[in-house]
């Protein structure tokens, strides 16, 4: 049996009728609030961020240095073997220049576009990166492979959050000195 247009149901409402209240609607704003236990791995990560350090965990079976740090290695399925401070520099794996915010609102005229990036952190295993923002550069100058360094909040303003790093800014350094 072919599905023909006249067989398919569904009543499309016009946006203007809807917004003008011509259709009966009921509003609700749920209060959905949480306090998630950080536990061991993320708890240590945040405490170290507050101290101005990016800390990873390592597994002596697969030899990965993992970011964010974790209490167990998800691949070897065993406890991780220790913490290791990594650098606050890294390489842009990928990025975007976003003209909309999280609620799909367009940014205002003259406002700087959001510039999120996946940054592979120096000292962590290859590919172990984090989501953060890029700053101190024209958004349209950002390139994949660009070297960046964290810009931190002042120590007294840090709260133990990923936002203790304000953003990452480009650095210029000779390629040879790149730390693996």
């Amino acid at each position: 049996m072919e599905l023909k247009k006249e067989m398919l149901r569904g009543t499309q409402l016009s946006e203007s009728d809807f917004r003008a209240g011509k259709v009966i609607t009921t509003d609700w704003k749920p209060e959905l609030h949480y306090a998630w236990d950080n536990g061991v791995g993320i708890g240590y990560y945040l405490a170290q961020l507050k101290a101005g350090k990016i800390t990873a965990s390592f597994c002596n079976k697969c030899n990965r240095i993992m970011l964010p740090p974790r209490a167990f290695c998800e691949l070897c399925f065993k406890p991780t073997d220790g913490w290791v401070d990594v650098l606050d520099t890294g390489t842009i794996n990928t990025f975007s220049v976003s003209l909309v915010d999280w609620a799909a609102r367009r940014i205002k005229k003259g406002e700087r576009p959001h510039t999120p990036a996946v940054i592979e952190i120096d000292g962590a295993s290859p590919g172990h990166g984090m989501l953060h923002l890029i700053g101190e550069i024209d958004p349209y100058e950002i390139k994949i492979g660009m070297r960046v360094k964290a810009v931190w909040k002042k120590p007294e303003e840090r709260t133990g959050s990923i936002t203790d790093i304000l953003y990452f800014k480009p650095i210029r350094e000779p390629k040879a000195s790149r730390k693996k």
Partner: protein
Amino acid sequence: MKNKVSIAGVGVSGFKALTSDLSYRELVFDAAVKAYLDAGIEHHEIEGFVTTAEDLQEGYSIADEYTPDQLGAVLKPCYTVSGDFLHSIASAAMMIQAGLFDIVAVECLSKASNMLTLPDLAAFAMDPTFNRPLNFSEHVVAGLEMSRFLFETGNTVEQAACVVVQNKANALLNPHACFGAKITVEDVLCSEPVSYPIRRLNVAQSADGAVVIVLASEKAVSRLSCKPIFIKGIGWSTDAPSLESREWGSAEYGYAATQIAYKNAGISCPAKEIQLAEVNDEYGYKELMHIESLGLCRRGESGELYQTGFFAPKGQLPVNVSGGMLGIGNLYDANGGALLSELIIQLRGLAGQRQVQNVKTGVALSWRGVPSSSGVCAVLTNEG
């Protein structure tokens, strides 16, 4: 059931009112490591994974994203059932019966302590047009149901209070339970009113914990070192989800789920063939309702039998020796995990002080809490 499915391993982490020292990932990892050890397998031997989650309970828009790592399920076939843990068990069992996999791990988690607005969340499960504008709580729905159930069956408020007393006492002997207490029927009946006839002590308090269970096919279990428990039958059902068209005087979902499970298990006279039951008792009266759904007594007789000690740990048919949700805590969709793990421990004869003697067949009946009308019934046996 065709293609016998067995339980090869079980791991429990918790249950506690708070688990502030562990993230949700770490809590599940602990249960998983224990379960895999119990089954005598390594994580990479597991072919499929089923997790149990509801987004807003966990605090994510897509809770499924955050399930694989702590089970060793990275880059493996893994999916979520948004149901009770026993729904997940049923789903996993079907995969094994169909011959798709031989070893499957099934997970559930409660971090209820991390959800700061649980009453709001329950309200958010109700119909937005016809229920929510009246601002009633989940306890109002339970209060109406309890009131109707008692009216139709002749069971009493005192009998429902006996359930609370017994389950909290049972929990004192269960190292996994944290709401054990020595209280009296008067304590229950004099506790603060919540939604008449429901009082504070009638309501299970929330708790945290994780359960991981390893299921195996007949073929796989024969090469594992564990002593398997067999799933004899499993059934699930949903009554009308809306508050307007469901049955209020009995747990219809329980009857329907039980019928399927008993049919699969070949059980025709449950009170004679079953030696132990674990049922959802988020409210004291729910245990009576569920006992009747399971056919462990005639409709309307559960309360009186309860008072005679029939369902006590040393009675003829012990129910909720674990302490149930009233004693262990309300683990939400992980409740089925608490019920099932108790059955497994009892059927293995490893329940220590609270061990029920000569248990061969046990049954669990879970329910998804207000305002749901879904339940799952699982029949387990230790006879191969």
